[in-house]
């Protein structure tokens, strides 16, 4: 193991392992290439979704999220995630429990029923921040054996990676840069498009409350990216991936459209640029298909 090798607990959540395992495989693979070891969190559950369970009952959401944090604490590791929902949920819970001693006490009463205790010894990171800040752009750049020189990319952030910015700490939510940097490091062009920072439409239980209505948001987002001349959309969130990718099939059925606009999670896009095959990145087992331009 090199000196810089570092271990993290990978908090999988639901959508990554159970719908888009390509995101799980590509992320682990790339991290390993850069000397970052991934450990599995045995017994982890749904994060649970901050906008969904947070909307139903905060008092249930919090101990379930805290239980997940305990698993990483028991492993003595910090966490990384591949979904903005997981990021939002676990980071928010960690933050609240560290800030409010009484809340921590109350939560630990629940966790104590099965012998667990939140101590406040872990930290929650997003995988794209590890790529950007721990591995770093210089090292990433050296490994881009299949640069994406003529590819125009629409960056989609999703919401809970950037906001609330007072908790996330990635600077202004109106002028983000991390995803842009990661796209540009592959040689691709990051293209601005109308309402780039808009939500995919899925969060907060909106997708479940009214799927066709939530797909209207998604459709507008995709149309804006396509009209700006983008070849694909790259994002950091498994839940957005579901809405943006499978949502295209749902839209085509519901609205009679013919969308097939390539959707890639950040590590899937970086993976292709590092010479991994689309099979290794799980891009041939999803709804939208990859054009030759991204694969050559």
């Amino acid at each position: 193991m090199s000196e810089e090798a570092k271990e993290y607990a990978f908090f999988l959540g639901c959508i990554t392992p159970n719908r888009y395992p390509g995101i799980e495989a590509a992320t682990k693979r790339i991290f390993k290439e850069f000397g970052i070891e991934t450990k599995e969190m045995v017994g982890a559950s749904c994060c649970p979704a901050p906008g969904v369970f947070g909307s139903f009952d905060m008092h249930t959401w919090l101990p379930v999220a805290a239980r997940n944090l305990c698993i990483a604490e028991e492993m003595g590791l910090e966490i990384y995630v591949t979904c903005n929902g997981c990021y939002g949920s676990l980071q928010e819970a960690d933050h609240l429990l560290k800030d409010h001693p009484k809340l921590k006490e109350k939560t630990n009463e629940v966790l104590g029923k099965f012998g667990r205790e939140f101590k406040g010894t872990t930290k929650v990171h997003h995988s794209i921040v590890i790529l950007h800040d721990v591995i770093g752009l210089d090292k990433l750049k050296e490994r881009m054996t299949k640069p994406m020189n003529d590819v125009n990319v629409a960056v989609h952030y999703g919401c809970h990676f950037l906001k609330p910015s007072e908790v996330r700490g990635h600077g202004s939510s109106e002028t983000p840069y991390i995803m842009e940097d990661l796209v540009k490091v592959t040689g691709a062009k990051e293209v601005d498009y109308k309402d780039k920072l808009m939500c995919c439409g899925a969060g907060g239980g909106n997708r479940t409350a009214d799927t066709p209505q939530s797909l209207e948001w998604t459709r507008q987002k995709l149309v804006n990216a396509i009209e700006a001349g983008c070849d694909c959309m790259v994002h950091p969130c498994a839940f957005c991936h579901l809405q943006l990718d499978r949502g295209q099939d749902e839209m085509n059925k519901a609205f009679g459209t013919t969308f097939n606009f390539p959707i890639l999670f950040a590590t899937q896009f970086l993976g292709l640029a590092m010479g991994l095959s689309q099979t290794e990145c799980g891009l041939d087992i999803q709804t939208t298909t990859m054009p030759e331009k991204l694969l050559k």
Partner: protein
Amino acid sequence: MGTLYEDIVDHGGEVFGKEHMETLMLCVQCGKCTGGCPSGRYTAFRTRKLFRMAQEDMREEIFNAPELWFCSTCFTCYERCPKGVKTTDLIRVIRNLAAKAGHMSVPHRMIGVYVLKTGHAVPVGEPQMKLRKAVGLDEMAPTTQKYKEQLEQVQEIFRTTHYDAMIDFDWNTMNLREAEGDEKK
């Protein structure tokens, strides 16, 4: 039960702190939240109006409007509110109170059923196990869905907070009581 505002401060205050919830009363109806709200473009949900109604204690009107559930919790309004109203957190807490009062759709309640059965809102099934194998992963991730004793811990949490009762969950059928047979909602 006090006024809606008092209930918001009580229920949400325990998690976020009371001051966080008290920001509801700082809203001056400027409309910046609604102006940047993606939901407002596609639905009848109006953030500014919701806070006015909450200030005015219009509990039933708020709880009975389906729009309450059309906020995606994108936090755009939260970032932009010039008065520091903790908008998205207030919306989630108002929804908590609505859910407690029985205003929760069957599809929303079903999310709880999946978590009670597997620990996941989106569980793995046979087709997805094949996808996992295709990318070189184990058929099942080592989560609550794989380990029963781990799942039982999540179930214990739901029992303790009475989430099972809130969605009318039947432990014998491991499903919603009302969802048996014909759909009621």
